[in-house]
């Protein structure tokens, strides 16, 4: 018994000591970094809201332009989260399960949206889908406005947030043993049944977290949206572009209030997703 105990501690000890600095230093470093580069800016935003006073904040968030921009931002982000959740899983599935010519290239392309400045993304979309371009003109001819309309916002967001679901779901798919699927098949499960009761439950935490991440990233997207949306108040003006307008007009209070709302919403969602993923992981571990 004693020997086992010693063995266990011996197993664990070297890992925490393999870092060249002590635990306290590590914690201080990580905590300090988080404080300076993440928390302080957030506190500054919150402070300017408090400085602006609650009346300003309330007015800024409940004006008709603000309300419609929040609504537009939420529904476009929701559509994008669902579409990319589906297409991202599908893409990850194809990447993990099939080998095909150009596999490496496709794999590399998936990360590109993160690296391209979003302003460039916007310009790219205008060049590609603009009303004078073949694709945009075809849609316009059929009575559907692609750019400078909510559809344009969705196109931009789909592009910018594409990698999140793929990269989150991919490692989970790799980990699922072919054995489990084979076992399900041997027990007479159809392919659909196998997918629904074996693969989907395993995917769920990663899929949900990454969909929420997609959603929160979409909430804050500015660079590409400001170019393709049209930015018409109460029609195509999103919340981040509203914030930009408020800043440029010297309405710091309104800008901070809307920012804080977006930050709060994101924080809530990320927190919820994190909790869900942890609980789920615990349950899976307990099984």
């Amino acid at each position, binding site marked *: 018994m004693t020997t086992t105990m010693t063995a266990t501690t011996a197993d664990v000890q070297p890992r925490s000591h393999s870092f060249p600095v002590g635990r306290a230093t590590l914690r201080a470093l990580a905590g300090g970094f988080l404080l300076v580069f993440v928390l302080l800016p957030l506190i500054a935003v919150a402070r300017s809201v408090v400085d602006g006073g609650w009346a300003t904040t309330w007015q800024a968030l409940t004006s*008709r332009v603000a309300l419609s921009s929040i609504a537009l931002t939420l529904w476009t982000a929701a559509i994008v989260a669902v579409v990319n959740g589906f297409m991202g899983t599908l893409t990850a599935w194809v990447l993990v399960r099939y080998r095909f010519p150009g596999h490496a290239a496709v*794999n*590399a392309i998936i990360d590109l949206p993160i690296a*391209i400045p979003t302003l460039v993304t916007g310009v*790219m979309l205008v060049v590609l889908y603009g009303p004078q371009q073949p694709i945009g003109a075809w849609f316009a001819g059929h009575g559907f406005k692609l750019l400078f309309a909510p559809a344009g916002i969705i196109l931009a967001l789909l592009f910018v947030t594409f990698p999140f679901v793929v990269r989150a779901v991919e490692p989970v798919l790799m980990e699922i043993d072919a054995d489990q699927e084979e076992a399900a098949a041997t027990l007479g499960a159809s392919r659909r049944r196998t997918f629904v009761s074996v693969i989907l439950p395993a995917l769920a935490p990663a899929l949900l977290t990454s969909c929420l991440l997609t959603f929160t990233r979409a909430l804050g997207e500015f660079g590409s949206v400001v*170019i393709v949306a049209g930015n018409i*108040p109460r029609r195509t003006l999103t919340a981040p572009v509203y914030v930009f307008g408020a800043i*440029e*007009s*010297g309405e710091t209070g309104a800008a901070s209030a809307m920012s804080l709302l977006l930050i709060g919403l994101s924080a809530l969602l990320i927190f919820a997703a994190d909790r869900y993923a942890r609980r789920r992981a615990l349950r899976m571990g307990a099984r």
Partner: protein
Amino acid sequence: MWSSLERRLAAFVFGATLLPLSACGGRATEDVGSVVGVADELVIAAYSAPREAFERALIPAFEAEWKRTTGRSAKVRASYLGSGAQSRAVIQGFEADVAVLALESDVDKIARAGLIPNDWRTRTGANGTVARSLVVLAVRSGNPRGLHDWDDLGAADLEVLTPNPRTSGGAMWNLIAMYGSAALGPGGSAEAGVDRVRRVFRNVSVMDKGARESLVNFERGIGDVAITYEQEVHVARKAGRNYDYVIPPRTVAIDIPAAVIDGYARPRGHQALAEAFVAFLRRADAQPLWADWGFRPVGEAFAQPSHAAFPRLKADQTFAVAALGGWKSVMPSLFATRGSLTMAIEDVQATR
């Protein structure tokens, strides 16, 4: 197979090569390292429209003159941003010696922060104005939609481009042109002004964040007409892009103010050079350089410039913001959150 880091790096390089495609502003001119320390230095905080006039004509001419008259070399560097953003940057610590902005009120903001003396208008004469332009209508070659006056922009099935007044000083000039053309003069009223803005905005489907972006979109083939500065069209022509412009029967004369930022220039020993630069911008011999890049001269010659590129203006074709009470009155009454034009634009858009 590439590692994830390599992949991201490659992607970034690819992204960076695409960057010049984007028409974003904010480039500071490059520093010529070898001259710094020997040369007299000057930093200009400018808005985006005079970039070409400054970089291609005015700054080189001024540097040459400074060398000729003082024997010392001068290095003038300029940063270009939206007028409002530039004014904020200066207030928040961007140590520029001279401000050249789109709106008098943006210079006033810097003055209120204590960096520019409050008498900056009278200090240099001509109300602080160094160059002028007009709000005009950029139309497709040959003016196929037959647009001549503001009310023509309200026609059915027409697409109008104008930047967002909440983010662009240029957009405010556009709105003042529309509003003032109906509000001033015999039979004019504030209601008529607001009504004109409302009618035009029924056809606005894109409000870009800046004046340049808006015109770039027009050049890409979006829209039938772009409300812009006369000077922007001239710059575009120099770059080989051809379309026409129409000067409405009544429009606003744009004053471009410049001021020395004493609060930064004096302690850094740049005051003399800064004052010389602002004086140079306004001088008669600098006016042809401005004109080459589309700006109209300050003073008498404004309506009848000798430069062949400019159409002559009829008497009374332009009005000044002063006729509407100046920026001090226009800002709160027209452009504030509950200003009449802000409200009108919001109303129009929701009813579509």
